[in-house]
């Protein structure tokens, strides 16, 4: 197996491709969190009073909260005063034309593989790019506006559609929800806002790219997507950050609201900087994502590919309130070196005939820890609820760990719940079989991994699936011995 070993080492030594920093003048607040900082963020953004109040209320609640410790992740206590809460490129940006965007930023995005100009022309995907704390470019806005779809940064939405923001913000994730979500509610700097009017099928895949650039800054973005009756939208999210030796905090809130007969498909390919092989640096990815199926026959589908971050701690959840509503969760979480991931979902069944599906694939390599933690809760009125859960883990090497911690709480006797899980490794037999047929060990490993993740990747939109496959191969090179 020495050949494999070599390949593995090569793979593990693969440098983080997106670890560069961009030399752009930014305007940052000094480090620290206080009521003043929050008021300042709010006033820079020229927010109406209800937003300032929303932030301050969250901040007051935050002061009484303690960081949770129940997750199976280990990190030093984060000093909230050591974080820069606002950082923005200095150049004034007009969102209508790309000509005025700082060319450095555009260069950064093309390095990331998202040349925004191209996206403008490329039919099918509309992109909102978020750089540090603010949204820098937003494509296809006009075309979308013609059919009534609002796709813009949340700051813009607060200015232009305050009634919608006021009505929905904080309804799925209340400001006192949890430590990191509350912090986000107080200090969030920007994010994406999408509103799909009734009877509209969004013709494009909407997409956001997040990039943390400034060292020591935290990124707190907030995404709010509302899909009105009989509508459909598919939304993609990608994340990268430069390689710094210090840990950076990313605490985002994502709220999805799905009305009657509507559907939201939310896909994430998360590849934040994971730290080096000794676990130095990397992003703390503490994200609260929650969707509510408000109306009957609504559907939410979460797909996530989590390959980056020093620590991932997120549970995209579905509250299935409407009758016949459907929640889906497809996840691949890959950890290598000293990465830690504690991720899963919550399916809360409240309405009748609600259905949920959970497919979670965890791959741990190196000295990493990978935990699936999920809740399936069937309320007393959720007659004929149905859940199917499958969580498989694959261990690569003997120093990593894979944990499965499901919670199943059922209060209705007409519910049907199935949960199954298995743990396996890439066996030498499988590798030998593929080798025998002329496939190199490295290709054999990616073939096996891509087979293992197939159930999830097939849920990703077109090119993202291909990208995810490549990403997995890249991340795992040289980890089977």
């Amino acid at each position, binding site marked *: 197996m020495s050949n494999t070993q070599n390949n593995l080492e090569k793979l593990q030594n693969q440098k983080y491709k997106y670890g560069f920093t961009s030399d752009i003048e930014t305007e940052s607040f000094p480090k620290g969190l206080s009521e003043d900082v929050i008021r300042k963020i709010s006033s820079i953004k020229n927010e109406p009073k209800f937003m300032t109040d929303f932030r301050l209320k969250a901040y007051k609640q935050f002061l009484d909260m303690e960081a949770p410790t129940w997750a199976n992740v280990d990190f030093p206590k984060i000093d909230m005063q050591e974080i820069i809460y606002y950082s923005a490129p200095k150049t004034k940006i007009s969102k209508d034309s790309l000509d005025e965007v700082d060319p450095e930023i555009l260069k950064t995005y093309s390095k990331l593989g998202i040349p925004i100009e191209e996206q403008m022309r490329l039919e099918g995907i509309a992109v909102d790019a978020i750089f540090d704390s603010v949204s820098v470019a937003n494509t296809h806005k006009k075309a979308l506006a013609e059919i009534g779809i609002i796709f813009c940064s949340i700051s813009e939405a607060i200015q232009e559609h305050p009634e919608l923001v006021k009505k929905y913000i904080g309804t799925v994730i209340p400001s006192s929800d949890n430590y990191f979500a509350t912090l986000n509610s107080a200090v969030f700097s920007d994010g994406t806002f999408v509103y799909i009017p009734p009877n509209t099928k969004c013709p494009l895949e909407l997409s956001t790219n997040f990039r943390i650039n400034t060292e020591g800054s935290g990124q707190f973005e907030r995404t709010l997507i509302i899909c009105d009756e009989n509508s459909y939208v598919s939304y993609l999210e990608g994340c990268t950050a430069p390689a710094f030796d210090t840990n950076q905090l990313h605490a985002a809130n994502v709220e999805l609201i799905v009305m009657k007969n509507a559907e939201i498909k939310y896909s994430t390919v998360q590849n934040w900087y994971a730290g080096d092989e000794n676990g130095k640096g990397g992003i703390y990815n503490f994200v609260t994502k929650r969707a509510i199926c408000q109306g009957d026959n609504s559907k939410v589908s979460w797909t996530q590919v989590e390959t980056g971050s020093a620590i991932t701690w997120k549970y995209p959840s579905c509250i299935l309130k409407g009758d016949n509503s459907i929640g889906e969760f497809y996840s691949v979480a890959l950890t290598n070196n000293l990465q830690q991931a504690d991720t899963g979902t919550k399916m809360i069944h409240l309405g009748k005939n609600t259905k949920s599906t959970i497919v979670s694939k965890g791959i741990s390599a190196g000295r990493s820890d990978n935990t699936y933690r999920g809740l399936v809760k069937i309320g007393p009125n959720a007659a*004929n609820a149905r859940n199917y859960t499958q969580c498989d883990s694959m261990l690569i090497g*003997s120093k990593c760990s894979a944990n499965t911690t499901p*919670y199943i709480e059922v209060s209705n006797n007409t519910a049907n719940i199935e949960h199954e*899980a298995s743990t396996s490794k890439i066996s030498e037999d499988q590798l030998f079989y593929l080798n025998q047929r002329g496939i190199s060990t490295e290709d054999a490993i990616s073939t096996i991994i891509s087979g293992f993740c197939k159930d999830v990747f097939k849920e990703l939109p077109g090119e993202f699936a291909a990208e995810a496959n490549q990403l997995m191969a890249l991340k795992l090179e040289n980890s089977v011995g």
Partner: protein
Amino acid sequence: MKSNQDSIKFEESIIRTASKQDIENSSIKDLKKKALEFISSNSFPNKKNEEWKYYDFKDLFSNSSNIFSDTETFRQEALDKKELVMLVDKYVFRESSENLIVTVNGVYREDLSNFNNNDIEISNLSNCKSDQLIDTDSSSKDQYLRSLNTLFIENAFFIKVAKNKKIDKTLQVLHISNQNSFNQIRSAIEIAEGSSLDMVISYVGLEDSSYISNAVIDCHLAKNSNLNFTKIQNDSSNSVTLYSLDVKQDKDSNFDFNSFHFGAKSSRDQITVDLNGTNSNANLNGLYVVNQSRKTHQIITVNHNVERCTSKQLFKGIISDEARAEFNGMIEVKKNAKLTDAKQLNNNLLLSPKAHIDSRPQLNILTDDVKCAHGSTIGQLNEEELFYLQSRGFNKSDAFVTLTYSFCQEILNKIKLDSVKNYATNLAFNNISTDSNGALAKLANNDKFKKSRYAKNLK
């Protein structure tokens, strides 16, 4: 924070009662002092503890406030001997009448036991070797319950099977509880190298007595030994039971555990198996059939500490009326435990609209060369199966009972002795059948069922 106050009240009454005890004259005064120290400086587990997350402390605290309300009569007069002998006669299994150990309200009673086997050594609290009363394991998850047991323990029994002896007669341990008291059951079972033992442990309580029993049992299986341990819990409907079983297994040993839960207002089992020797095997099976407003909690941990061990957990539950059940199973595969093969499965039948189940099948795996799988299902009887039986002449409730029985038969069949099997089967039926017609009526009213093509045939 009412529950918090109740908890403090409970702890206070423990310490108050303990201080009235004559600890100085006890044969294990050092251990009792240590236990008192532990209890004074620690608090009773609460909901923040993952293993107690779903536990309803209300039943425990309400029983305890009755028991402790008059500390002078903490231990009342037990039934007279004649009545006890009649009770023992009622509950002893035919095959075990010569191999019987009896405790009454937690106290080991040599006078009621009937035991005659030279290969098994039985000792009590005053003549046991001090290391038999394992109490020093501070890493134990249930240290509080253990200390509580040590603090109030009056008499206990310790079983030791000599080397290379295959005991062919099943040993029965009968625990009788008949008064409102806080019972401390304690025993330790040591199976020496190359030996094997079959045990049936039955718990019975006089109806209407609202006691709390706190059992602590330690088993050690030496190299190449075998223990078959069947537990049948049929405590009084007003009782609260806490049960901690710790099993340590050496090389090539085999442990079969069958646990049955039918009684008690609230029962909680914490079972921990440590596979410490290579090639050891543990089979844990359980069946809980709960109705009315009973609650049962099964907290099972299997630690694979060394390589090449196997374990299986199969727990089934039938929950009706307003009963609640919890299954919390954990497989821990430690760093060097290569070639582990571990399985865990939990199946539940919910028969009434207000029945509730919390199921948590968990895996913690720290090495790669293992085979681990777990699963959990929650559902109700299959309409098509019910219809099939009815189309062949079964009436509604017979079809219902037949299907429910076949669900639990897999576990009941693990019992070796016929008399024990019949006893357990009857108890299971008692707990199911009270609601059978009700459950069926509810099924017939189910919206989905009404629409199905079978509904009209049911009328």
